């Protein structure tokens, strides 16, 4: 694997390999010395041209646990804020000998543009591009679901038959897109629920079911209920009338939480708007996987960096 740009073009076998490696990485994170020498002497650049402290820190911890040298390059205060182009930034990183570039960019497709450009030879990891994809988030979500369902017996398993309902602003969500492709490739049945304004025109061709009614979705007792972050500024563009109505129709309220069976996982990619798309009780309930997701994020990102930058043990 040269780059990780999207889950849409990630075959099931490849995804399973990453998830299984992440299990090994999780074992390392449980040790007293949480460090492997695998990427010693390699340089990973976190090129974050859109602010995201959480994802950047997760990648930074992952790279450091693999003993890589990590350079953080963020938009604020850098040459990028002085108008430097993606091309010039990429060529600069190339000249400095970056082996891997983890890129977060506000424009959909920027990682793909970088990978196809010839400006840089480093492996590219998409850490979230515009409203396109966020593949490591989907991988950590799949990893989290698998671990909750199968525990120590997770290795090698897909998510066949698992029911996942993704709720909210799918239109603007790179997390939702990456999860649609990855979870369905792993065999899950995915349903999208939200107001029609926030479900993309053209999503009818996706391998998912689409609905508007969260109560109906809750009544079907899905294995996983994934709440997406909704940005309140969407109100101004007439996607929905207001926070109260959104929360009433598509929020995971205490009442809806009480109707879910205890086996249903409640997921959220963070950061959460408590009281808007998810109630405080739901966020803090035993059903919530939010903190597991954060912890698993490090393991999954270690696995991704390992597959991209370390020599493949099987010589593939």
């Amino acid at each position, binding site marked *: 694997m040269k780059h990780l740009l999207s889950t849409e073009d990630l075959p099931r076998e490849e995804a399973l390999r990453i998830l299984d490696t992440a299990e090994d990485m999780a074992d390392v994170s449980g040790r007293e010395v949480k460090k492997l020498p695998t990427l010693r002497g390699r340089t990973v650049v976190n090129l974050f041209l859109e602010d995201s402290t959480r994802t950047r820190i997760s990648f930074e911890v992952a790279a450091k646990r693999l003993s890589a040298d990590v350079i953080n390059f963020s938009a604020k205060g850098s040459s990028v804020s002085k108008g430097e182009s*993606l091309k010039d930034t990429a060529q600069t990183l190339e000249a400095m000998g970056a082996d891997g570039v983890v890129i977060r960019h*506000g*424009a959909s497709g920027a990682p*793909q543009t970088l990978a196809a450009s010839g400006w840089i030879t480093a492996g590219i990891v998409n850490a979230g*591009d515009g*409203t396109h994809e966020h593949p490591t988030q989907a991988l950590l979500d799949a990893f989290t679901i698998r671990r909750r369902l199968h525990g120590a017996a997770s290795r090698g398993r897909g998510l066949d038959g698992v029911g996942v309902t993704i709720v909210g602003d799918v239109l603007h969500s790179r997390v939702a897109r990456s999860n649609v492709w990855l979870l369905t490739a792993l065999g899950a049945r995915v349903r999208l629920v939200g107001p029609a304004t926030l479900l993309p*025109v053209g999503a009818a061709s996706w391998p998912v079911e689409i609905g508007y009614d969260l109560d109906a979705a809750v009544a079907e007792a899905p294995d996983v209920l994934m709440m997406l972050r909704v940005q309140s500024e969407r109100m101004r563009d007439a996607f929905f009338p207001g926070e109260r109505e959104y929360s009433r129709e598509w929020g995971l309220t205490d009442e809806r939480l009480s109707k879910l069976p205890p086996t249903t996982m409640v997921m959220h990619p963070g950061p959460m708007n408590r009281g808007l798309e998810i109630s405080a009780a739901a966020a803090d309930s035993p059903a919530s996987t939010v903190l597991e997701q954060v912890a698993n994020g490090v393991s999954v990102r270690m696995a991704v960096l390992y597959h991209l930058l370390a020599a493949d043990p099987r010589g593939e």
Partner: protein
Amino acid sequence: MLRITGATLPDGTRADLAIEDGRFVEPADAPRRARTIDAAGLIALPGLVDLHTHLREPGFEQSETVLTGTQAAAAGGYTAVFAMANTQPVQDTAGVVEQVQALGLRAGYATVRPIGAVTVGLKGERLAEIGAMAASRAQVRVFSDDGMCVSDPLLMRRALEYVTTFGGVVAQHAQDPRLTAGAQMNEGEVSARLGLAGWPAVAEESIIARDVLLAEHVGARLHVCHVSTAGAVEVIRWAKARGIRVTAEATPHHLLLTEAEAAGYDARFKVNPPLRRSEDVEALRAGLADGTIDIVATDHAPHPAEAKECAWAEAANGMVGLESALSVVHAAMVDGGLLDWGGVARVMSRTPARIGGLRGYGAAFEPGAPAHLALYDPAASREFGLGDLRGRSANSPYLGRTLPGRIVHVFHRGVPTVADGALRPADEVAAARRLEEVPA
């Protein structure tokens, strides 16, 4: 005196042609010792006329100039281009349009007819000095805010009426700005997948529907720029059946390429209006074949490399198209049997000249008519490359693609601008230019 022997005319017949003093003359009158071009196997087309070109000068000379843009035009078989108004300063006064026209005359590669802005600064707020531009030496007859839509319905109504006063036409860039805020590509399956903000077909179709009704109400002519959707073709077909005086253009790229090209986020395929679905391409081809779409116009839109070598959302809209237009129409229309060469002459020369009020293109090849001519080898085929581009910018979507045909000779008012497939040098063309050529 020049003789051209054995050319195939657009109607399929073979004929000799002769040119003297910038005009076609009776070939029988040509002296035997006249210089001769053997045009066996070549199609003689009337010089092509582009109703929609961005020459970028004044203001954006790093992208194109009147000289380089008309060189690109000549390389594509064009002898006249209508230069869009979105220059800097905008072509919204007599002074600017006269400057652009004069630059064209000086270069000599093609007749340059400036298009005047409809509104001051293309801002859509108040009418530009349409009368002054019409009365200027540039004799502007086409008015457009292209790049921006005249979206205010009252202003559009007034513009349609006011332009009528000067025998002109408004060329509308049909795009509802509110429905396309931040839009990056056609809204549909591909945009949903790529996470790019959608440019819905309805944003084009609703403006066209409104404008044809306004044109009907005030009895004005309307020209619709770069029609790109099947629904828009339907609306125009309906308007024509109703007797509304509307004409419409399609670009070569909308006749050949689809939104699927966006999948790799290669910004060379970012254009406004965006590439659409294959159903739209089929509808545009059918509309051009049955006359619903009157003409092909390039929307030649040069941009420097840095405006395309970036993330899709940060890239400029537009593609260069003058050099490739005829080959693309050949591939999209002629090869599929939808249009014959007579049809090509109609949609790429005679009708655009008529819509734009450009004289000299009504009776191609007739003795006495200005010698605007392109000789085209339809049997040729080539991988389109940087060497085929003669303008200043290289943002062509066809690089690396095999396209049919080749321009062999071009004459602009009898002056060779392309000879044996090569552009003639600027000094030679400028020296031979016909100073008397002032648009009627």
